[in-house]
């Protein structure tokens, strides 16, 4: 071990000696090279030092920029935080406000629902209104119409107008009053007013009613049921109920009437019994003659102490559920003294039939009037009419609008006539008036008329009617002419020349 240490030490000492010898040998050349190297190194160090200084200056700027940006970010962040806090505050306020509104809305909704629940039903409202208006009730019905009339034979044309309000009054469930006023306008100037119907209706029970007053004659169907402008499918009345009436259109008296269902629903029967002042004839004539006109209104019975008695029965044979349509069959009679001891006897039968768009009706009536001298004044009259609603008709080559207009049309045809032995020339009217063309042909002893009509239904009770009348008297007869004398001049007349007339009318039922 000791020998090893001694060997190592000897080796180290040897190396040191060798190195010293080498160093001393190479010293002068090495010093020169070393100085040059040191100079280069020094320059290198200086360059690096400058580089470091430049880097440090750049870094400082960078740091300053970053610090500035950091300040900005911090400022921004502060602002954002502030804004966020404000938003949170606002949100909290809004939520609180919303909650209050919701609560308030819920309360109001509950109040409204409670109020709605308290509102009376339609039935309660109707009852309340009924109580408010009282049990006495008035209403206005009726009709109005404007005409234009052209008559070929007389070469006359004119406008005409008529107004017929009906006042209805109901004090209770079993009593009602009806008053009809009529205003029409005469040729030239002025107007005429009438009250053709004024009645009290007393509903005695389900099967009987009493009617007292001046009423449409319940003879046949036309006077009672077809008179109003908008109800009559034509503008004019058929001859036996118009220009050449066989039975007075109205009468003053009393009726008992009612109806009953005798079979299934729709199978009804009804009756009308009445007593009235009775017929009277044109009192402007000095003496009665055959063919003399009836007075249109039979007022106070001053020319006879007798009354007229009438009866009418009607039956509907088909039940509502059948597919046979609605058929009405009626029979009437009216008999009364038109002068002391002299009677007018009349009877008539009538029908009406409706099925779908088809409606037809017709009547025949006969009158026998006892005359003071000579033979009786016999007359017969009739009419038959038919109409067909074009509802549902669709023509493929027409537009929808045109088809709509077409479906509102109702073409009509009517044939009517009156037979009587004579006419009074003094009574022949030639002035057009409401519902009358002015044609003298209507007053022929054997008048015949063909009426063609076209109704355009604007509403169920508003209609524009157009009528084309052909007057075709079948035969002539006797004429009586007073011309101011106390006794008539008797003459004869052939079939009056034919005539044509056009009437158009806008009729409104209200």
């Amino acid at each position, binding site marked *: 071990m000791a020998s090893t240490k001694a060997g190592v030490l000897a080796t180290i000492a040897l190396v040191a000696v060798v190195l010293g010898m080498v160093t001393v040998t190479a010293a002068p050349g090495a010093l020169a090279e070393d100085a040059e190297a040191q100079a280069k190194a020094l320059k290198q160090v200086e360059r690096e030092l400058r580089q470091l200084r430049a880097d440090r200056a750049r870094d400082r700027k960078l740091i300053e920029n970053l610090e500035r940006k950091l300040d900005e970010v911090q400022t921004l962040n502060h602002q954002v935080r502030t804004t966020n806090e404000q938003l949170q505050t606002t949100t909290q306020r809004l939520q609180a406000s919303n909650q209050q509104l919701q609560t308030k809305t819920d309360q109001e909704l509950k109040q409204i629902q409670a109020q709605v629940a308290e509102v009376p039903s*339609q*039935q309660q409202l*109707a009852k309340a*209104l*009924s109580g408010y*208006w009282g049990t006495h*009730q*008035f*209403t206005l*019905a009726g009709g109005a119409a404007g005409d234009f009339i052209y008559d070929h034979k007389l070469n006359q044309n004119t406008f005409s107008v008529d107004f017929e309000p*009906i006042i*209805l*009054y*109901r004090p209770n*469930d079993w009593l*009602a009053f*009806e008053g009809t006023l009529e205003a029409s306008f005469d040729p030239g100037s002025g107007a005429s007013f009438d009250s053709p119907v004024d*009645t009290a*209706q007393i*509903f*005695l*029970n*389900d*099967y*009987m*009613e*009493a*009617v007292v007053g001046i009423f449409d004659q319940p003879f046949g169907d036309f006077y*009672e*049921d*077809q008179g*109003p402008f*908008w*109800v009559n499918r034509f503008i004019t009345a058929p001859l036996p109920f118009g220009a050449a009436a066989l039975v007075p259109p109205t009468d003053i008296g*009393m009726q*008992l*009437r*009612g*109806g*009953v*269902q005798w079979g299934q*629903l*729709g199978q*009804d029967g*009804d*009756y*009308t019994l009445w*007593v009235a002042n009775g017929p009277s004839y044109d009192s402007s004539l000095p003496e009665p003659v055959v063919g003399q006109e009836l007075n249109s209104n039979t007022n106070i019975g001053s020319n006879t*102490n007798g*009354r007229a008695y009438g009866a009418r029965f*009607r039956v509907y044979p088909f039940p*509502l559920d059948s597919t046979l349509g*609605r058929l009405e069959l009626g029979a009437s009679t009216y008999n009364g003294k038109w002068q002391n001891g002299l009677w007018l006897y009349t009877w008539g039968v009538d029908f*009406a039939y*409706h099925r779908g768009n088809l*409606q037809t009706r017709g009547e025949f009536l006969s009158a026998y009037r006892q005359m003071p001298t000579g033979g009786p004044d016999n007359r017969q009259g009739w009419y038959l009419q038919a109409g067909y609603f074009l509802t549902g008709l669709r023509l493929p080559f027409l537009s929808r609008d045109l088809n709509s207009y077409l479906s509102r049309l109702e073409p009509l045809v009517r044939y009517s006539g009156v037979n009587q032995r004579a006419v009074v020339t003094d009574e022949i009217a030639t002035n057009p008036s409401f519902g009358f063309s002015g044609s003298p042909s209507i007053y022929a002893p054997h008048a015949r008329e063909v009426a063609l009509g076209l109704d355009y*239904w604007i509403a*169920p*009770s508003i209609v524009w009617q157009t009528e084309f009348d052909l007057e075709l008297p079948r035969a002539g007869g006797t004429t009586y002419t007073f011309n101011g004398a106390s006794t008539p001049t008797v003459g004869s007349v052939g079939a009056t020349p034919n005539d044509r007339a056009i009437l158009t009318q806008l009729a409104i*039922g209200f």
Partner: protein
Amino acid sequence: MNRSYLAKSVARILALVTVCLMISGTAMAQESQEGKQKLFLDGARLWPVYCSQCHNARPGSEFSPAQWDLIMMHMRTQSNMPAKDARAIKEYLKGGLE
């Protein structure tokens, strides 16, 4: 003679009216709700048929329920329709608001 005849006629008429008033029944049974519904349905069937017998059937909306009370009294007289049918049509035209 004419006076006595007139007096007799008036007496007969008055007697007839008196008898009619005596036999008339004015009490109307209170109609049940079911009865009213049946009336309404019958009225809906009768309305277009009965009204069209003379004129176009007019809708219930044209007049108020109170007006229909009046108008149906008038129409019952004009048409002589059975009283129960008049009530049914009235119920229908009033829209069940009775």
